[in-house]
């Protein structure tokens, strides 16, 4: 007993001394061991990271100096297929060279591209089998674990590396994992590995907001970097190897609401000829699950859908009324450009039911003989009660579809079969009044005439003009002038627009750029905030809000409209192109955007502007063109009449 005890004590003592020396030893050992492990991990993967050099190509891509320096690619098959980042090839090199692990150079070719995850598949002629690294499935990864970014940007033999931890597992809508290791053009196309030298993914530039092969590259070395997990690419490799490009899969739906974290994924509209329509999805359905995973808001739906590719089949669970419906849709790379169907009527704005205010010339409604004052009661056996309902119902149909319309003229009910057309591209003639009833003035009418608009945190000058017969019960059109840089003559602006705005029920808003020289792209937010501030005090219809700009103001108008589809319904430009690098969005069933261009048809610029009109028309935007006076740099009274009349007709169906 006693002996046992003393032995135990000795054990404690021995253990204590042992641990003391381990403390001193361990201090350096831990740092050294960690360093050794990191270095060994890099050595394990280094032969599978191949240096790529490119020759020729563009000097500049957009405003950026194109790289063109050595970059990296990762071996994905022993017979010579490599994955790299598409960033490395945006400058369209004339030829591509790869340095084999043995040091020999060989030529490489781009076989296919993954446009969704910004990757390219290269093929080289390898005489010896290439070392394929071990890949780690995403499910085995843990946030906080070591990650090492490995490239071959500096040497074809020695890898360059940067250390960090795994920051997040599902980024860029689930397409990538995130690391804080320095990720930059120095290692795009290389490997992100774990401490054992196993490959987590291919390093590339990506952004959750922007698209294109350079998206997210401006974040380089910032502590935010992305890699595409390789185990997710493996099932796709065969397709890429056959030379087929991969593109993000599209379903063809528009959702209701704008708050992606709060709003339910309720379908506002289904694009015709889209996978959604073919699979039987209907407007009003709510998506409750994708691939068996529950989704409750827009963001969760994007997380499930955006990583999918064209050609993939997606299983959706929908709530339709009280029923749960299961559908399957095969996603597509390109949606047929959506054109809004057009019936040809303007509704009276304050009427109960759908009363025709005007029938637009040469429209299907005009052909069927409808006239002002008719009341639409039924469309395709469905009762038509409100203007909004009718608009949504029509928007789901394809132009050229025939509909059965029942309308009332006086006491008489009439039937018509009407073949829908597309939105008109001409300015309507004089329109009858939009309102049928007189409104009583409230006791304290809000301020009319000239109104100051000031944003607390922005230096931009802005003001509004409110018609003196303004009434809060009526929804007004809004005409936003995006002024050219420099001083604005307030009184002259108001005098020029006053009469036509009053006549068409429009409020005028003028916004100037902060700088005396130019508009800057970040000021799209300022314009939006000015509109919101005004809409907080006055009753404004987003469906009849249009931006008007001359030259640089016009270019800005395009940018603001493309970014704020739900708040802007029209763009009017005088001699203004769409700024370089700005891509018009797809036409959308729920958010209509009409375009009105003015320019001198004889000017040197005209050919280019006409091409732009045609491109927009091809995307199915209704483009109205009006020829401006020779060398015009200002709008004339006639132009203003045409613009306000066009604006007044934007709630057409």
């Amino acid at each position, binding site marked *: 007993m006693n002996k046992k005890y003393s032995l135990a004590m000795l054990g404690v003592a021995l253990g204590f001394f042992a641990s003391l020396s381990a403390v001193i030893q361990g201090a350096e050992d831990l740092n050294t061991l960690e360093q050794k492990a990191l270095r060994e991990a890099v050595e394990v993967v280094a032969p599978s990271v191949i240096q790529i050099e490119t020759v020729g190509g563009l*000097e500049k891509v957009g405003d950026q100096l194109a790289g063109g320096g050595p970059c990296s690619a990762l071996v994905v098959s022993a017979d010579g297929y490599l994955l790299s980042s598409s960033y490395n090839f945006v400058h369209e090199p004339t030829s591509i060279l790869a340095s084999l692990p043995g040091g020999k150079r060989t030529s490489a070719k781009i076989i296919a591209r993954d446009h969704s995850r910004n990757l390219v598949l290269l093929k080289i002629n390898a005489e010896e089998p290439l070392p394929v690294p071990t890949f780690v499935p995403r499910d085995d990864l843990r946030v906080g674990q070591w990650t090492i970014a490995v490239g071959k940007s500096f040497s074809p033999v020695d890898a360059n590396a940067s250390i960090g931890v795994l920051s997040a597992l599902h980024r860029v809508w689930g397409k990538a994992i995130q690391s804080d290791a320095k990720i930059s053009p120095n290692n795009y196309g290389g490997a992100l590995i774990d401490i054992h030298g196993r490959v987590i993914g291919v390093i590339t530039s990506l952004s959750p907001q922007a698209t294109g092969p350079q998206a997210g590259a401006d974040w380089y070395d910032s502590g935010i970097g992305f890699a595409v997990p390789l185990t997710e690419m493996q099932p796709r490799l065969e397709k890429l190897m056959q030379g087929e490009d991969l593109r993000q899969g599209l379903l063809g739906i528009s959702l209701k609401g704008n708050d992606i974290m709060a709003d339910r994924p309720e379908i506002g509209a289904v694009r015709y000829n889209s996978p959604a329509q073919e699979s039987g999805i209907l407007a009003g359905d709510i998506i409750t699950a994708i691939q068996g995973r529950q989704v409750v808001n827009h963001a969760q739906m994007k997380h499930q859908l955006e990583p999918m590719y064209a050609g993939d089949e997606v299983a959706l669970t929908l709530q339709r009324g009280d029923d749960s419906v299961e559908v399957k849709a095969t996603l597509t790379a390109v949606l047929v450009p959506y054109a809004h169907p057009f019936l040809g009527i303007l509704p009276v704005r304050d009427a109960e039911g759908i009363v025709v205010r005007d029938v637009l010339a040469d429209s299907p409604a005009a052909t069927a003989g409808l006239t002002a004052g008719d009341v639409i009661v039924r469309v395709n056996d469905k009762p038509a009660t409100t203007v909004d309902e009718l608009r949504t119902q029509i928007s789901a149909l394809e132009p050229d579809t025939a509909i059965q319309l029942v309308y009332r003229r006086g006491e008489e009910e009439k039937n018509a079969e009407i073949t829908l057309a597309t939105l008109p591209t001409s300015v309507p003639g004089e329109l009858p009044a939009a309102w049928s009833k007189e409104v009583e003035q409230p006791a304290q009418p809000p301020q009319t005439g000239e109104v100051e608009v000031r944003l607390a945190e922005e230096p931009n000058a802005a003001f509004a003009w409110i018609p003196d017969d303004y009434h809060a019960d009526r929804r007004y059109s809004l005409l936003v002038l995006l002024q050219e840089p420099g001083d604005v003559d307030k009184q002259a602006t108001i005098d020029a627009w006053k009469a036509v705005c009053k006549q068409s029920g429009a409020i005028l808003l003028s916004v100037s750029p902060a700088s005396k020289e130019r508009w800057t792209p970040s000021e799209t937010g300022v314009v939006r905030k000015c509109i919101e501030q005004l809409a907080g005090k006055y009753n404004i219809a987003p469906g009849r809000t249009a931006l008007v700009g001359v030259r640089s103001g016009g270019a800005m108008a395009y940018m603001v409209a493309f970014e704020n589809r739900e708040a802007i319904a029209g763009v009017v430009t005088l001699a203004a192109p769409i700024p370089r690098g700005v891509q018009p969005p797809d036409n959308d069933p729920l958010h209509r955007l009409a375009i009105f261009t003015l320019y001198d048809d004889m000017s040197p610029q005209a050919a280019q502007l006409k091409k732009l009109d045609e491109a927009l028309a091809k995307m199915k935007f209704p483009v109205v063109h009006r020829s401006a006076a020779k060398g015009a740099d200002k709008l004339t009274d006639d132009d203003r009449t045409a613009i306000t009349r066009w604006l007044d007709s934007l709630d057409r169906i």
Partner: protein
Amino acid sequence: MNRSPFVIALTLSLGLLTSAAQAESSLAKTIRGVQPRIVKIFGAGGLRGLESYQSGFVISPEGHILTVWSYVLDSSVITIVANDGRRFTAELVGADPELEVAVLKVDADDLPFFNLDESVELTSGQRVLTFSNLYGIATGDEPASVLHGYITAITDLQGRRSAAEVRYKGPVYVVDAMTNNPGAAGGALTDQQGQIAGVLGKEIRNASNNVWLNYSIPIRELQNSVEDILSGRFRPRSRDENQNRPMQPITLAQLGLILLPDVLPKTPPFVERVAPESPAETAGLRPNDLVMFVERRLISSQRDLREELTFIDRDDPVRLTLLRGDELIEVTLNE
């Protein structure tokens, strides 16, 4: 045999826990040991967005300070603020314009210093520490900022040949710590034990892919130059960029190479025609061959090719690597 498993478990866990904590504190100790050797340097600049401050470190018991040569030193008064907050007026002892380093001296003999004879050479993959006055955030007696990093690569500094901004072309340590910041130039790079390994370089971009480069010049590259400056033996090296160019370089015409018209800044050097009975014809060049390398240098444009030929004497052979279809072919012209 009789030892209680409980005791063993206890000692083991005790040992592991304390060694992890100890590893951390050993790093803290290293950092505390290095910081007093770093100084903040204030001089010219402060206009047109140029900073008027940078970093340096003490390298002798007499108060010599090593830093990078820059416009900051281009001032009649250079002020040094030591780690303890003391201010000194420094004298410029000398500078090496090619390595772009300078040695200053202050009148202080009690500053902790690095002995350059004890500098260490690093290898790729080593974990390191960097010490500097980045963004000038350390003021007065505040210690310099520390960044923790990893030697990403060891490579020759690729300055653009046309740009004279970086003259040094020797090996550098590339680190993954963001040292490419205003004020960081002249700071110290050490290993995890705090032994001096390099001087942090100025803000530059990588010439090959235009990315900001975080680099440090190894002490061994500077040591001779620093010793020469300290002993008053210093003679600046020639910075004549043309010194290696032959008097009569070879031209494309002499080789018999006619390229596609050079219309773009980066027109690739495709062969359009080969002059009859020229060195190019003898070597078997053909129309549509793409010139990829002259010797071992990658050629990315016609401009590059012409530039590269200016380094070759008209009597010397020219070794080219061509891309013909998918095949890389090596030829020697002018043999």
